[in-house]
C-alpha cells in the first residue's frame, strides 16, 4: 500500500518535472527573502526582550543576510520572458535590497552602531514590501499558469 503510494508519487514527480518559469523562480526567491527577514525580526525581537544571547542573534542575522544575498542573486540572474516578469523582477530586487539593508542595520546595531529598535522597524518595512511582491507575483502567476 505504502509502496504503491511511493511508486505513484515517484511517477507523478517524473511526469510533472520540467515545469518552471521565470515567475516561479522569482516567487521562490521572494519566499526565501521573507523567511530570512522574518527570522531576523524574530531574532531582534528576542534580543530586545532579553530572551536570547547576542551570539545567537548575531549568528541568526548573519544567516539571514546570506539567505537574502542568495535570493537577490537568484532574482538578478532570472531572465524575464514578458513585461510582467520584468516588472516583478525589479520590484523583487528592490524589496530584497530593503531586507539586506535592514539586516545590515540590525547587525551594525548589535556591534554598537545605531539602534536596534530602528532596525526592527526597517525589518518590518522590508517584510511588508516583500509580502506585497509575493501577493503580486501570486496573482500574476495564477493568471499566467493557472496556479502552481
Amino acid at each position, binding site marked *: 500500500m*505504502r*509502496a504503491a*503510494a*511511493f*511508486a505513484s*508519487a*515517484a511517477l*507523478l*514527480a*517524473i511526469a*510533472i*518535472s520540467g515545469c518552471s518559469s521565470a515567475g516561479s523562480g522569482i516567487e*521562490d526567491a521572494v*519566499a*526565501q527573502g*521573507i*523567511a530570512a527577514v*522574518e*527570522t531576523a*525580526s*524574530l*531574532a531582534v525581537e*528576542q534580543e530586545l526582550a*532579553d*530572551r*536570547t*544571547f*547576542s*551570539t*545567537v542573534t*548575531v*549568528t*541568526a542575522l*548573519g*544567516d539571514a543576510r*546570506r*539567505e537574502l544575498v542568495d535570493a537577490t542573486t537568484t532574482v538578478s540572474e532570472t531572465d524575464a520572458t514578458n513585461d510582467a516578469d520584468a516588472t516583478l523582477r525589479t520590484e523583487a530586487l528592490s524589496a530584497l535590497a530593503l531586507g539586506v539593508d535592514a539586516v545590515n542595520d540590525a547587525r551594525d546595531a548589535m556591534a554598537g552602531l545605531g539602534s536596534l529598535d530602528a532596525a526592527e522597524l526597517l525589518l518590518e518595512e522590508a517584510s511588508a514590501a516583500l509580502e506585497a511582491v509575493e501577493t503580486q507575483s501570486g496573482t500574476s502567476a495564477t493568471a499566467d499558469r493557472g496556479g*502552481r
Partner: protein
Amino acid sequence: MKRIFGVALGVLTAIGGFVDIGDLVTNAVVGSRFGLGLAWVVLVGVVGICVYAQMSGRVAAVSGRATFEIIRERLGPRAGLANLAASFLINLLTVTAEIGGVALALQLATSVDPRLWVPVAAFAVWIVIWRVRFELLENVTGLLGLTLIVFAVALFLLSPDWGSLAGQALQPGAPADEAATTYWFFAIALFGAAMTPYEVFFFSSGAIEERWTEDDLAKSRLNVFVGFPLGGILSIAIAGCAAVVLLPASIDVTSLSQVVLPVAEAGGKVALSFAIVGILAATFGAALETTLSSGYTLAQYFGWSWGKFRRPAKAARFHLAMIICVLVAVAILSTGVDPIVITEYSVVFSAVALPLTYLPILIIANDREYMGDQVNGRGMNFIGSVYLVIIIAAAVAAIPLLIVTGAGA
C-alpha cells in the same frame, strides 16, 4: 542498585544519542514547512530503527559478529563492496555534516565563524576516539544530549493550540502550498534521518566493544524499545516547535540558528543554553559515532583488526582510516559548503543505501548457525519483512524525488 543504574544509563544514552544533526535539521525543516503533517514518518522510522537495531544488537551479542562482517559474509565480495562504497560515502558525508554541526553549535555559543571552529571540532573528535574509553564517550555525550529535552519543554511553554497540532499530525498529506512530490521527498528524508545505517553499524559494533553476551539482551531490548521511541518524541518536539513558531511566520528553516529560535521564544536564555549544549553534545556524539562507523565498516569488510578496546597500534588500519575520514571531512568543510545542505543530502542517501545493509541482518537473524535458538520469532520476521518492503520502496523513490523536487527547494 548498580543494575538499575546501568539500565537507566543505557536508556538515557539511547535517548540522547538518537538525535543528531540530521534529525535536528530535517525535523525543523519539515516542521517549518509542513507542521506536524509528517510526524507519522518519525513514528514509522522509529519503529524501523528499533526493529533493525534490536536485530543487529541480538546478532552481535549472540554470535559475536558485527553488522558489516555479516553483510560481507552474506552478500559476497561484490555486492558487499558496492554496499561498502555506498555506506562509507554516506558515512563520510554524515561525518562532515556532524563536524560542521559541532562548528555551527559553537558559532551559536560564540558567534565566531564556524569555519574557524571546524579544525578544533575535528581535532576534538579525533583525540576522543584516540584516547577515551568507549563506554565513557558513549555515556557522556548521550547524557549531555538529553538536554535536548528542552525542545519538548519549550513546546509546552509555547502553549500551542494542541487541537490544531493534533489535526496536522492526524491528517497527513501535502498542504495546499506544497507539491505532493515535495511532501514525499521530505517524508523520505525524515525516514532516512531516523533510520541512518551508521546508527546500526555503531550499535552492533558497540555491542562487541562492550563485550555483550546473551545475558545483555534484555538490557539491549530495553535500551532500544524505550530509548529510541523517547528519542523519536524529541524529534517530533523539534518539529512541533518549528511548527508553532516558524511556520506561521513563513520561515523555512535553512540554518541551525533558526532551529533554536522557538526555544528562546519559549524559555528565554535558560532554555536556549540547554538547547545549545544539547545540540553541541548531540552533534559531537554523532560525529564520534559516524567516524567510528566508517572505521568499523571498512575494517569489518576487509577483516582488519578493529575496536577501541585495543590499543591503536593493534588496530592500526582501523585508526588510520578514521584519521583519513576526519581529514577529508575537514577538507570538504573548508570549501565553505553549508553543513546544513550536506545534512539534507546525507539523510536522503541514507534512505537509498538502507536495503542492502538491512537485508543481510534480517537473514542472519534467522540463521541457527549464528543464532542458535535466539533466531527471529514469527512476529519479528513479520515486522522485519514489512520494513524490508518499506525500506526498498523508500530507497527506490528517493533519487527520482530528489531530482524532481530539486532537493525539496
